[in-house]
């Protein structure tokens, strides 16, 4: 019998299908990995830097108007977002999230699935090995990292966000990065383009963050109270419907260890405030307003630990006091053109694309595309192979 490469060993011993390599451990990649794991598919989830797995990168607004509802997400994933969500008292269809807390729990959740293996690596190439992965039983895709590592899987899901040629435009300058300060996936984009994949350019606006001694001074703004969606939750395990997911395993020696959540915890159940004012300029950005059909300048808290405020890009230049901690910027990137609604790529068997890399804009859209692709991948593997 052929010896398994170290990268392949492990996961497939417990799970029938897989491993599927998910490239990118942001919002869409995590959602896809979790949805795959819940379907019994093993996953290698590859992130460029594992210190901010699952971080919602572009601001604390979770828009729920028109897009998919939270109910499309696997139970545990939905819980993570709801635990760190505040909803406006006026019933507008958006939520304000604590991005850092969501990211902390997204990583915890991803790690809890034994079917998901986290791996740190900057992916530079994805290759189809020519074999019909699922049917032939062998690995169908190879993923190579900047450190020369080759991971083999039966399928690959690209979830790199705005990483393909990601550029941050700020103050007239153009800097590398699909996310501020992070290395872009330019080599991977080149590799895919060489293979004939088509891209289109997108650009999105990210609002500024400000630190204020008190409340923001937004002229003509209306104050809206934000209430925690889950005011009384205790722990992840106690409260929710896990949709039949396996129980969280314990680390040897780690039983009964209760680690506090830190500075987030203090204000977790507190009410917050949002400020809604008229939009300054319709040309300011592509960011949609929280209320359907009505563009409004919205200023909301961005994170309990830091106490920054997020100023949506349509507010125009900030004049509400305090100091700008993170300047507003625009992120431009290539996104894959021509992906099917389920994320599959006609002409690229074994490769799917999800999230912003597939053209999604909002977090819910990104996560839903990840979940949808997970179903599609699972079906393809199951119909192709029966079992591997």
């Amino acid at each position, binding site marked *: 019998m052929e010896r398994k490469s170290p990268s392949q060993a492990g996961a497939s011993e417990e799970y029938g299908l897989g491993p599927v390599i998910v490239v990118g451990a942001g919002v869409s990649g995590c959602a896809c990995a979790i949805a795959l794991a819940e379907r019994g598919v093993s996953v290698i989830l590859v992130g460029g*830097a*594992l210190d901010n797995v699952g971080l919602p990168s572009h601001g604390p607004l979770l828009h729920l108007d028109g897009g998919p509802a939270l109910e499309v997400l696997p139970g545990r994933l939905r819980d993570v977002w709801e635990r760190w969500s505040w909803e406006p008292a006026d019933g507008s269809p958006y939520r304000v999230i604590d991005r850092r807390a969501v990211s902390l729990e997204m990583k915890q959740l991803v790690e809890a699935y034994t079917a998901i293996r986290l791996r740190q690596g900057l992916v530079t190439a994805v290759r189809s090995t020519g074999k019909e992965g699922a049917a032939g039983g062998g690995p169908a895709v190879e993923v190579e990292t900047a450190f020369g590592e080759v991971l083999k899987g039966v399928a690959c899901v690209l979830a790199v966000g705005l990483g393909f040629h990601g550029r941050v435009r700020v103050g007239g*300058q153009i800097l590398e990065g699909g996310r501020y300060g992070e290395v872009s996936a330019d080599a991977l984009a080149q590799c895919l383009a060489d293979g004939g994949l088509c891209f289109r350019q997108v650009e999105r606006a990210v609002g500024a963050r400000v630190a204020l001694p008190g409340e923001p001074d937004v002229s003509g703004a209306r104050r809206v109270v934000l209430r925690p969606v889950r005011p009384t939750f205790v722990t992840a395990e106690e409260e929710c419907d896990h949709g039949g997911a396996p129980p969280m395993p314990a680390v040897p020696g*780690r039983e*009964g260890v209760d680690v506090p959540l830190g500075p987030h915890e203090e204000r977790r159940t507190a009410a917050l405030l949002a400020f809604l004012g008229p939009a300054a300029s319709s040309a300011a950005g592509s960011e949609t307003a929280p209320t359907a059909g009505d563009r409004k300048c919205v200023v909301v808290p961005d994170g309990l630990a830091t106490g920054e405020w997020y100023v949506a890009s349509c507010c125009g230049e900030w004049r509400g006091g305090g*100091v700008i901690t993170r300047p507003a910027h625009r992120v431009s990137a290539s996104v894959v053109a021509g992906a099917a609604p389920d994320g599959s790529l006609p002409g690229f068997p074994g490769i799917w694309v999800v999230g912003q890399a597939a053209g999604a804009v909002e977090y819910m859209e990104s996560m839903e595309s990840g979940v949808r692709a997970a179903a599609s991948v699972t079906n393809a593997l199951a119909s192709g192979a029966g079992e591997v």
Partner: protein
Amino acid sequence: MDVRGENCYDVVVVGGGHAGCEAALAAARMGLRTALVTLNIDKIALMPCNPAVGGVGKGQLTREIDALGGEQGRNTDRAFIQIKMLNTSKGPAVRALRAQADKRLYEDWMKATLFRTPGLYILQGEAAALDVSRETIQGLRLVDGRRLSARAVVLATGTFLRGKVVVGDRAYAAGRVGELPATELSASLEAAGIELGRFQSATPPRIDGRTIDPSKMQLQPGDSGDLCFSHWEKPRRRSQVPCYLTYTSPRTHEVVARNLHLSPLKSGSVSGRGPRYCPSIDRKIINFPERERHPVFVEPEGGRTYEMYLQGLTTSLPVFVQEEIIRTTPGLERARLVRPGYAVEYDYIVPQGLTLALESKAVRGLFSAGQVNGTSGYEEAAAQGLMGGINAALYVKGEPPLILRRDQAYIGVLIDDLVTKGVDEPYRMFTSRAEYRLILRHDNAAERLAGIGHALGLISEEQLAQVQENQTRMEEAAELLTSLSVRPSEETAAVLAALGTTPLSEAQSAAQILRRPQVSFDDLLALLEPVDRDKLADLPREVVEQLAVRAQYDGYIQRQLAEIKRHQATESRRIPEGIDYHTLEGITIEAKDKLSRLRPATLGQASRIAGVSPADISVLLLHLHRLERAGEGGGGMPESGAPDRPIPTTSGA
């Protein structure tokens, strides 16, 4: 209200790591309008390597930082998931605290503290260039075009200056894995006349903690007692997460040896010099071929993650080799790799270009601190950050800098070593670097330094009063111990025998009994009459520890104090700024060159320069005597701006 423009600051700190956080907090707490510029606010106070704070030598630094009003100790206390006192069976000089931190909790608490500090502004951006005019710092330009005016700047850029991460023969530009480096600032530093060098450092792989086999490793639990780093907060008991100890096997060494040609150390894809004292497994096997095994500590990265850190397996060998190394280590046979280890190469500022205040000799008002000065370790970084921040603030206020002496603090040893001797590899603190380590203990850090922290405004009135009260209680208790006597009896004989020591032949004072190494303070209490016991109950842990140390080591401590006094006369003797070494007769050419280039401020500093011999120092001393007699100034007279802060505490036991 501050009438200055939004982009005008007193102090701008570049970098949000362990040095940058301390520098920014210190400057802001000293009342200055301070900005901290970081490449990514989401990664402030990240622990990119070991998920731990403290250890022998380093733990003392953290205690000193805390005693001066810094943040590292307090922040660690909020975030630790294990804490222990090291070397409890050895002498007090090498006793130190070490804690495993929940990395993300550590970041979050530090971030919260930074954002809640009045007068401190956190700015996301990349510093592109210094704004220098007439050899004095004026501010900074950021890559995005913003200009920040600053009266002082503290550089705390860690490994980000022209950073490059390396595994095997692969590399890409990054300050840490996945994070963009600072590409522009180095050129600006060089243009300002600041000498840069190139170093490398590396981090070991992380594995999935569910895939280890603890039955093949030694359990390394935390201490059950209430320990904490900070002097200022009460220890809170909490559940602790264990570490594990295992060792590499001969097969591990075979794997490394077989693949050494793939190591960046050998292939030349890393050009900078790496740390001798935190060597990679590749380096250990090259340097110590006779060693059959090397220890590997398996440490949790947090309480909410399964990731574990493999201390001892630092490597930048190709990933498939890393996996083999892990699999051949007992207990890790089935361990799943999560993050491959890697090396990082970066520019550092040659620290001999700095004054003892950590200020650049080339640019006034420009300070640097942390890994960018050629050190390694969070504690070394934070210690410099604190001092850089304090001195930047003092500079802005027009006050003389704070310079800690080698007999006063490990921080003094650290900075003096860096500035005087320079670095040929990333510098790490050890107790052996200090001449007076019996004086520089972790238990008396507050006594040594809290008064200084208070004078700076970093330690409150109440905190200082608490330190002074502890001192009083210790003196009283020490006196009481001398006056109380214990008579020989069957009971005491039994207690002493149980402790493995001899019975009393005649009445002895409690202090004498405490001198016995077998007898702890608690044991001693058991020998006392209840009424006396009550007088000594409820002493703070630090006081108890100091009493025991004093009882056992008083002779040695007194000897070191006397030695310090003797040395201080020459040590602190100032060398006038304008001295022309080339005119001095009887000094070697090498010493003349080095002294002229490095321009030491004191005779003590001059004596520690490599290439300057004791004979050279004698000649120099004679010359200083002559200058003094001739009344040309200098000599023992402090000059303006020279380090001459009053030291409000005694540097004693």
